[in-house]
């Protein structure tokens, strides 16, 4: 089949969605399809520009294409008779983020009109897709709640097919990934000072702001945690990540309200390690079952510290959770073969 993967773009920016779109096209090719990524530029401000780009998507055509797989608002409006949506997210500012500090569209008559256009366009045009999959349960729930549209979850696999290993169960909790305040690494550092065991913490990843890096360093110094907390403030290569996950006690991933399960969660599972997350972390619970594959703790230092201590004190149980995590990940079939078969309707 000739398959077009449709994605938004902001020129010169390359992030997770772009990587996923490219990986999907590459995998479609490996499975014998002709595949290409079509990127449509979108401008978000001033908010009325959003309407222009909804209209632009609606007016575009997609010739010579057997199947279109759009990933995002507003490029999913591009008309095509055979469209399968793999929804990463709608325009959340018009939905769950309306009324929060992330709203971005003003709460004026004009702003509300823009919000309503977005909602109506979704209600009207999303059902054109023959099938709708979402990248997480959260995205699917939102679609049902706000638009009364049913969908199925299709979890995105790891982007790179790296070989994850399972080594000794160590004595450090590792937190790998971009370091910023929505990922809440500072909360992990604060947890360590409440631990009763000598469990250690390794925070590894590039900080996005100097201020947040300083806050973490200050916290470590203030509570004399230098020997117990290691902060590796730089980009972590795949090799290093595999190594860190292989020999850790468990992995901590506690973002605030994320839609997706988090690639690092899956990477930890494939390294047969337990994962600690929080009750308000969002989609991570696709892979973390409390007491089974890890811990879902309240987002406060003492609760996290208790989880860390339990893992440290019973490494046999920690290892068993890791093994259960791997089994769960495999049973969810988070792999490209499943994704390609599902999206192309050949499963």
């Amino acid at each position, binding site marked *: 089949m*000739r398959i*077009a993967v449709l994605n938004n*773009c*902001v*020129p*010169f920016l390359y992030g997770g969605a772009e990587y996923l779109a490219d990986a999907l096209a590459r995998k479609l090719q490996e499975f014998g399809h*002709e595949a*290409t990524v*079509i*990127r*449509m*530029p979108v*401008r978000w401000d001033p908010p009325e*520009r959003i309407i*222009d*780009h909804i*209209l*632009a*998507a*609606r*007016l*575009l*055509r*997609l*010739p*010579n*294409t057997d199947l279109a797989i759009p990933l995002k608002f507003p490029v999913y409006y591009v008309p095509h008779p055979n469209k399968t949506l793999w929804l990463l997210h709608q325009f959340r500012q018009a939905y769950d983020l309306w009324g929060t500090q992330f709203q971005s569209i003003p709460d004026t008559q004009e702003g509300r009109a823009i919000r309503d256009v977005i909602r109506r366009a979704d209600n009207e045009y999303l059902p054109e897709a023959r099938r709708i999959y979402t990248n997480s349960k959260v995205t699917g729930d939102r679609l049902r709640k706000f638009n009364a549209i049913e969908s199925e979850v299709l979890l995105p696999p790891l982007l790179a097919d790296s070989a994850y290993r399972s080594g000794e169960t160590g004595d450090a909790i590792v937190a790998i990934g971009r370091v910023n305040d929505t990922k809440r690494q500072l909360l992990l550092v604060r947890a360590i000072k409440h631990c009763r065991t000598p469990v250690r913490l390794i925070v590894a990843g590039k900080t996005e702001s100097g201020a947040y890096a300083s806050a973490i360093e200050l916290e470590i110094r203030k509570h004399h945690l230098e020997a117990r907390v290691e902060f590796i403030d730089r980009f972590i290569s795949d090799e290093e990540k595999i190594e860190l996950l292989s020999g850790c006690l468990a992995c901590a991933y506690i973002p605030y309200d994320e839609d997706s399960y988090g690639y690092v969660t899956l990477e930890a599972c494939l390294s047969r390690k337990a994962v600690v997350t929080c009750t308000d972390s969002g989609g991570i619970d696709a892979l973390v079952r409390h007491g089974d594959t890890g811990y879902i703790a309240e987002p406060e230092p003492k609760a996290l510290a208790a989880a860390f201590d339990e893992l440290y004190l019973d490494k046999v149980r920690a290892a068993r959770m890791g093994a259960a995590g791997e089994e769960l990940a495999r049973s969810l079939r988070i792999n490209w073969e499943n994704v390609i078969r599902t999206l192309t309707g050949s499963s």
Partner: protein
Amino acid sequence: MKIILASSTNVFVRGGATFFVDWLGHALEARGHQVDTLMLPVSEEPNALLEQMAAFRLIDLSQHGDRLITVRTPAHLLRHPRKVSWFIHHYRGAYDLWGTRYQTLPNSPEGIACREAIIGADNRGLGECARVFSNSGVVRDRLRKFNSVDAEVLFPPLPEPNPFRPGPYGDYLLLFCRLAHHKRQWLAIESLRHTRTPVRLVIAGPADPDAASYVDELRVLIARYGLDDRVSLLSRWIPDEEKTALFAQCLATLYFPFDEDSYGYPSLEAHAARKAVLTTTDSGGTLELIEEDRNGFVTPPDPEQIGEAMDRLFSDRALAQRLGESGPERMRELGIHWDHVVERLLA
């Protein structure tokens, strides 16, 4: 400089324009610029033309990049404060082909209004450009005639580095391009029939999707004139290594499509391999490159006269060599190299 390179694509049809954009992108990057290439889909279905032009117009790139370079129509409708167009062809059904049997829009009030809207939109988009360049004198003249736009001719070079190399001046003439009726492989066979020397002919290239019967006609023609041992017809995709060898060892090349806009890459490939080009007075753009008795021959499209030119080259290898070696000088004279192209586009 941060450069957005924007063009339109038929999606899954790779042809001259897609390569052109790739090569320009590489040439810009090789000179230290950061390039983001946007290929927006376009269907050539006449009923959808205006809607798609509106879509391009609604996409606003003005927040990004130091420069926007637009290539294939209707990319020049995209909005950007620092826009230049390297215009390679109009939507010809509404321009020079209007009033011919290739006219794509109906001669109804709607068709006429549509044509006027296309011309009006092009005038607006091109009028916003800081500079307009064309890929040939033919297209420059059309821009002047239909849009009152003064364009500078910027001839497209081969990709860099190009793999073509000189070699011995062998005993065959090479006609290397897609097999299609207007490329006139049949004229080469008709001409060979009139030669008095044993010069051979190699016709090579993939057939157009709808050209199977045309290839059969060529085979019939070869058999009818008893030229089987003097003509090789390679009707298939030719791998790069084989292609460069064919150019390296030929006596000279033939390229006489009917009335094309540009000189065609096969002519440049011939010159890169230090080979002369035999073309005809009605071939269009080739006449901008090939000068009689300097870097090739220009004959009327008459088999006897072409046959005579073929014999001259075969009988006088020194002549074939002299003409072939003049090619690179002629290309430099016309500014057919990327340093010139990049310098002009970014001036």
